[in-house]
Structure formats: C-alpha cells, structure tokens
C-alpha cells in the first residue's frame, strides 16, 4: 500500500508527512524518513519546505535520516535533488548507518552528485559538516 502524503502539524517545529517526521532545528530541517518514499510524499516535502523557508532566516540545511527509509521512486529522487538546487538551500546531509541506507543515498544523489549533498554514516559527522561554512 502506498504511503500517505498528508501533512500534519504537531507543533511549530514538528510536522509529519505520512510516516516521515520533520523537525525544525534552528536553520536545519531534520527529516526522519520512514518506509517507501513516494512521488507524492516528495512533492509534499517540497511544498512544506517552501513554507518553512519563509519563517527561517538565512540559508537552510537539511539532515535526512535514511535509516528507516524504504525505496525512493525515480520521480521522488528527482524532487529531492531539486531541494538541493533551491536558492534557500545550503547543504543536504544524508544519514545512514547500514548498507541499505548507503544504497538509497547513492540513488538519491544520482550520477551527477551535487556538491552540496553528502552521505554520512554518523550523525555527529553530518552535523559537523552542515555547520561548516
């Protein structure tokens, strides 16, 4: 069954898109992806992020945790790549500690691996990279 892409606001800083949890932490949008990542969910993320951008000062980073994520549809991957090209986006850190997450991240980054998207196997390293200017 495909994932719901409904946006639910728990608080100003915690929003859910289907089974994905989105947290606003300073100038970082922290996404914990869970289950299959459909095209509809990717669209919902893009919509939500553009809304969040308006209330965030300066450039925005993304920390995307793929440890519980399932397959990304090709269209969803393209939409995530678009996130990296947005004016407001600074960096995107993809996080995963196991081989499945590493494979998912490779597919998201694709053959034209963007400079501002990087994969990390530890959250500490990812956060450190995001904070680097």
């Amino acid at each position, binding site marked *: 069954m495909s994932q719901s892409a409904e946006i639910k606001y728990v608080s100003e800083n915690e929003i859910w898109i289907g089974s994905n949890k989105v947290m606003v932490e300073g100038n970082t949008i922290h996404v914990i992806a869970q289950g299959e990542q459909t095209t509809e969910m990717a669209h919902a993320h893009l919509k939500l992020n553009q809304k969040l951008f308006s209330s965030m000062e300066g450039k925005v980073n993304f920390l995307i945790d793929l*440890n519980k994520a*399932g*397959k*990304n*549809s*090709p*269209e969803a991957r393209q939409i995530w790549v678009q996130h990296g090209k947005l004016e407001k986006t600074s960096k995107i850190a993809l996080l995963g500690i*196991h*081989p*499945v*997450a*590493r*494979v*998912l991240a490779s*597919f998201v980054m694709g053959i034209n691996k963007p400079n501002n998207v990087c994969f990390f196997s530890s959250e500490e390293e990812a956060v450190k990279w995001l904070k680097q200017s």
Partner: protein
Amino acid sequence: MSDNLLNSRINEFIEAIMKVAQGDFTIQLDLTGENNHLDALAMGINMMVDDLKKGRDTALENDRIKLLNAQLVEANVKALESDRLKSMFLQNVSHEIRTPLNAIIGFSELLPRYFENKDKLNYFSTIIKQRGFDLLDLINDILDLSQIETGQLPINLENFELSELLIDLHTFFINHRQKINKTHIELHYETDPCHKQKYIHTDKGKIKQIFVNLIYNAFKFTEAGTIKFGYTIDGKNSIEYFVSDTGLGIPVDKQSVIFERFVQLENETDNTQHGTGLGLSIVKGLIELMGGSISLQTTAGKGSTFYFTVPYESTDVTGVKIVNKGIPTCIDWHQYTILVVEDDIYNAEYLEEVLSETKINVLKSSNAKDAIDIINLDLPVDIVLMDVKLPGINGLEATRILKSKMPRIRVIAQTAYSSNEDAKKAINAGCDDYICKPFNKDLLIKKINKQLGYL
C-alpha cells in the same frame, strides 16, 4: 546466515535479474528488514529496475511524441499542398473559363463584320457554340466533383446492354478522333466472349461518364498507336472494364497523385487540349460511389491501362427503351399561347426568338407576380415556361399558385439549377416537366410539343 539460505537468496537475485533482462520491469525483491548487505543489494536491484522501467516508459513516450510530430508535419504538408492545389485549381478554372470566353466574345464581335458572308457566319457561330459547350463541360465537371465529395450524387440503376454502350462510345470517339486530327490512332473496343448475359443492371450514365473521361485522356496523351477499351467478366458479380493506350505513360512519381483533384500531367507535344485536372478525380469518385475500385498499369513512354471494376447484377430484362418520336419538321402552334416567365432579358429574348419559329402566341413576364396576374386575367394561356429563380415569389411557389387556380395549364420549369434534386423539386411543386439551362433549342421544342399533346 547458512550457506543454503545465502545460496537461495542469491538465486532469487539471479532469477530477478534474468526476468528484467527479458523485459519484465515489474520485478521487486523482498527485503528482510535486517538492513544487511543482501538487503542493500536487493534495494539497489529494485531501484535499478524502477529506473530501467522509467527509461523504457520515457523512450516509448518519446516514440509516441515523435510519431505524433511526424503526423502533424505530414498533416501540415498536406494542408499546405491542399491550399496550393486549390489556388492552382482556381487559376486553372479561371484559365479554362477565360479561354473559351475569349473565343466566344471575340467571334461574337466579328459576326456583324461578316454579315454578308454566310460561310464565315456559320464557321464563327459553330466556334461560339462549341466553346459554349466547353464551358458547360467545365461547369458540369466541377458540379459532379462537388456532388461526389458531398455524397449528393444519386446512383441511378437501370437495365441496359453493355455492348450497345461500347458501340455508342466507339461512334462518339471516332468523331472525336476526327475533330482533334488524330485519325491515325486506331480505336477498338473489346467485349468478353464468355459474357452470355445480354443486359446488366447498374448505373449506365456513370459507367459511360467514366469511360468518356478515360478515353478522352487516352487521346490527349497518345500521339500514335492504339486506344482500346472494353470489359472482361471478373468473378460472379463484378465486371472489369479497361481503357488502354500506347501513349506517354505516367511517370512513377505521378502515379500516386493522378487521382487527386486538380492534378494535371503535362503533354509537352500537345498544347491544344486543356483540362481542369478533375477528370480522374471524378472517375475515381464515381467508381468508389458505386462500390468499385480503379487501378493503373503504366510504363513511361509505352502507354497506360486503367482497370476499373464496378459491382453489377446480370439480368435478362431489357431496360425501358425511350422511343424518340422526333420533332415535327413543320411546327405550327398558332392556336396555342405560351407564357414565358424569365427575369433575364437576354434569355427571354432568346426564348421568344426560338418560339417565334413555331408561330405560338408568346406572353412574357419578368417575375412571378406579373405571371399570376396574367393568369388571373383569364388570358388563354396553355403552357408556361417558368424560370425558378425569380425576384420575389420564386418559380416553384408561382407554379403551386398557378396550378391551384388553373390545373389545366402545363408548366415546364426552366432553370440553371441542374441537379436531379432540383428536377425533383420542380416536379413536386407541380411542374409537368423540367429543362436545365443552357438548353438546346430542339430539346425545348420537343418538351413543349409533348406537353401540348396533353391538352
């Protein structure tokens, strides 16, 4: 994980990859949820399959778009070509109208100068008449094509003797051959010796029209040799007709377009004959209208043969023979009165001139209202020659009124509306007969004679 489990998992992957290789992009491997290397491999395969499917779908979509684009380009080319052909057609028609008009106007201007020279007068009037008929042929061609294209041309089935039709055509084209100075070309017709049935049931007029168009073309493009036409029995309910010549033949690049409207082949050696480029379109349209088909065999420089088939029914029953009673050589209708209703003064004058030879009393009216007034005056009118398109009340409405007042009066509609439908309308309105403009004097006299016979 045991070796057996590992082998079984790897076999699953191999099976999946083989199916993908055969084009099955629905394959998806299950993940155990342990997020180990095998799950990573399975996830990678699944996502690669998705990418391959997307690539294939995109390629198919691209092919579809390419095909649509090609169709659009083709449609555009056809539309432009159609526009070009229509412009060419108008130029052609204009040329074909102006050419005989030039002779008609020119020789008409010369007539008064040669008033005393009877030979010249006869010669000029023959040319004027012939060029008038050429104009009429052109108009008839355009009307035929228009009716074929709009599906308004009715099929008139009748019983007739096919060999008689071929004899008529042969006689007609022997005269034509003489007129165009091509008597050195042999002209033959052939019948199928196996065809025992004397009569067939089909549209004689259209079969004749098809033959006439094809044989005209054969003469146009043949400088020497033989022209043959005829038929063979092709199956139980189909006759294969043919027209062959030893003329120029049709170049390969023209063979696919010769049946299209407004297309004309050039005959560089013969500039004496022209055409509208409608003949073969009409031929094809008539054949298809009757449920038949046409084909062509041709060799450039050696000649062409057109074959066409039209469904028919054999019959032993003869058609209704129209007995031509002829026109009395000396007409004296002084005891009769005719009312000519005609708004065109020249046509009215022409009718008066023609009728004066018969001594009939002629009353004239340029509109229907005056015509009705004349009838109301109880003038002794026996017959009315009624134009259809008139100012105010039209001729058909006027006929209804006249017939309701004086059912005894005979009415012949005379009109430039020339279709069968127009003839039916006239009869339905109460007219006793119908004659189409331009009409031949003898035909008019014959029709009046017939109506006077009912009085």
